[in-house]
């Protein structure tokens, strides 16, 4: 056998690809959602000219806030390529727990809020333990825990009711330093999300969602990261449930029922991939606003009640199709 001295290559050099615009989809997955939101807002203004006045904007924000918070939490779970089908139930459970404690303890608001947050964190931890450590399937596990959390909510407060002190809901609906309280809550939540985005955890989270095997081989603590995502989701679901206390001034064990799929829809509308690894909290906020504005537009356009569901679904599909087209263009 001839023994060549130099190192030779068996394969021809692969063709080099020039940098492609595909990255913008990874870095700014929310751009499309922002465009859709602008179109919807313009439609809203056309239908209802005082849409941009302080009072109307604040009341819109107040109406959108609970779903927005739930969608922020859902984003972290989806980024890890998991899913949380229980966050609507957590919203309900936190809502009735807080109201029951505040009502039963003669207006102990602090205790009620703390208990609500604790319940949300615990519920998220339960999901995370099953999915991340016991390796249950995320979709069926969180469906099952969601059923259980809903059952607990009905046990805590079988029927909508309860009362919270007027000071609670007036300050929720009021303003502080000329900015509505609900806006402060959204600002705080955004700041929290921005902080998380600067942590090592956030890099690990996207790595786990982007390629779990590779993240594991790199030494990322995969199970801990997935658990943390569920705990964060539980935390934001709790904030959502507490915001609903401020919004409705009472408890309702069924109030979060629609939030699960709405929050997932908001996340997807915001450009986060259900397969994980790509997405942003900002996108989910925009996605939740899109869902809220769609309801607004239908309401102000005075569509016949019987048609509202059909129109709403069609607009959501239209908004989603933009993302599908962009994904095809960039070749995957």
């Amino acid at each position, binding site marked *: 056998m001839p023994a060549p001295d130099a190192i030779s290559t068996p394969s021809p050099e*692969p063709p*080099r690809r020039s940098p492609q615009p595909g990255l913008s989809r990874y870095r700014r997955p929310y751009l499309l959602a922002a465009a859709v939101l602008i179109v919807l807002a313009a439609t809203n203004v056309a239908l209802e000219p005082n849409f941009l006045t302080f009072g109307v904007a604040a009341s819109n924000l107040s109406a959108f806030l609970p779903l927005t918070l739930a969608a922020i939490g859902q984003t972290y779970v989806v980024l890890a390529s998991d899913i949380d089908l229980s966050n609507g139930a957590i919203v309900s459970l936190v809502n009735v727990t807080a109201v029951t404690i505040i009502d039963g303890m003669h207006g102990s608001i602090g205790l009620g809020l703390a208990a609500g947050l604790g319940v949300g964190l615990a519920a998220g931890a339960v999901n995370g333990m099953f999915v991340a450590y016991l390796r249950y399937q995320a979709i069926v596990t969180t469906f099952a825990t969601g059923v259980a959390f809903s059952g607990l909510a009905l046990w805590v407060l079988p029927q909508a009711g309860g009362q919270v002190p007027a000071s609670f809901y007036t300050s929720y609906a009021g303003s502080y330093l000329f900015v509505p309280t609900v806006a402060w809550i959204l600002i705080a939540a955004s700041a929290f999300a921005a902080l998380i985005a600067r942590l090592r955890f956030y890099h*690990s989270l996207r790595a786990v969602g982007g390629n779990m095997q590779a993240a594991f081989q790199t030494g990322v603590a995969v199970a801990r990261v997935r658990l943390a995502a569920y705990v964060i989701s539980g935390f934001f679901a709790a904030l959502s449930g507490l915001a609903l206390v401020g919004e409705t001034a009472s408890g309702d064990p069924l109030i979060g029922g629609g939030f699960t799929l709405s929050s997932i829809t908001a996340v997807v509308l915001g450009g986060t991939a259900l397969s994980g690894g790509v997405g942003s909290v900002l996108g989910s906020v925009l996605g939740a606003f899109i869902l809220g504005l769609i309801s607004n537009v239908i309401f102000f356009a005075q569509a016949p009640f019987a048609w509202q569901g059909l129109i709403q679904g069609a607009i959501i599909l239209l908004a989603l199709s933009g993302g599908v087209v962009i994904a095809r263009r960039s070749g995957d």
Partner: protein
Amino acid sequence: MPSLVARGIRKRYGGVVALDGAELTLERGEVHALIGSNGCGKSTLCKIITGAVGADAGELILDGRAVSFAGPADAVAAGIDMFYQELSLIPAMTVAENIYLGREPLTRLGLVDRAALRAQAAAAIAEFGEALGLGVDPDAAVSDLSADQRQIIEILKVLARQARIIIFDEATAALDRHQVGILFEHLTRLRSDGRSIIFISHRIDEVFAIADRVTVMRNGGNVMTRRIAEVTRDEVVTAMVGDTQLTRSEAHHRPRPEPALRVEGLDAGKLAGVSMTLRRGEIVGLGGLHGQGQSDFLRALYGVVPIRSGTIEIGGKAFDPKGPLAAMRQSLAYVSGERTRFGIMAIRPIFENLVLTLLVRDRHVVVARRRLEATISPIIARLALKFSSLAAPASDLSGGNQQKVVIARMLAARPTILLLDDPTKGIDLGAKADLYGIMDDLCAQDVSILLYSTDDKELLSVCDRIVVLNGGRIVAELAGDERTELALYRAAYASGTDASA
């Protein structure tokens, strides 16, 4: 004291023994090459060292102390790192984020220091300079990079961890000569720093260019460890082959002169300009290292892998494989050794698994169960398929019997050309012998067979001719008395055009 000692390592995957008492001693400041044929266990041994896979038995001694790793994170903490052949990059993340994943530089507040992250990545990239090619900067997404660029990013990721022991598993596979040279400069520097490197490569020239010592593995154990200065290339290849190097193919079917299949300049998947002829009643083997385009060849003929250019003729007529159904109608049949992925519907009854091709090809609307049973029962008998009931799920069968089901399904459609893609992977000897018997029968009936196998002995024992692929091209053809294990190894392991000599 050696840096790392692995002793008596054993590992089974199901019924397959991957490692059977493997040993390795790694000194401080050496580049230690690990070499052996496909499936000899070298990758498994390395994954056990890095904690990615758990061993069934044996011990690891790191700096004189016995250690056991629950996962890669433990091994990384102990200073052991690995370049993964299949890469461990996150496509949707940037180059900088990938290189420093899990060890991002932090500010005093504990947040990721993005500026430092970018600057460090830029410095790391600069070490490869223009060899990296266009479009690689710290903010580029890994998904936008070419195969060689990704491989270099994986190398940079491993180097950035500054581990004391680094395993490079096929780290040069996609690199050109210049890029390999830069990697070797890094390895030389690491060695003089007192770090230890395990270097796995199929390119023997590279092993001789960089390694201090070489360990040859075969069948899950190690057969030789020598200083590179005291060993020749031929001794290394002979050690890989083992004592059976004198086995010579006895296969002699009587192919008819007319071609069943002619392929001209085929470009598909990893294939680059493959031309060959398969005669009627002939078995041609596809040899070479794993993943040199053999599977792509078979899958392109079957219409699964898209064809970029080239022509195919079957029985003298042009054939364009648009998809598996078109291929089946041209009397082609394809059997993959990846039964669980491409073959068996594990939870469905054996019967359904057997008649699938008939149902698809003949577009049955109503399933005439009794007629189908009559069609397949002689095939079942000939294949000596063992089962309790045709209604039992296919998952009840052993691997060998599952493979027979997949083959029976294909034979039911009476193919004239059979494409076998590593069909005996992980099946027992008895089932293998049955399969070889059937292949001989089919040849006697003028059926032609293209066989890819990762088992070189199998290629030698059943094929009339063997074409050896390397980098998507045919680099050698062995026929008649040339069909020896040594010749096959030389052709497979030599680089590029040197193989045909």
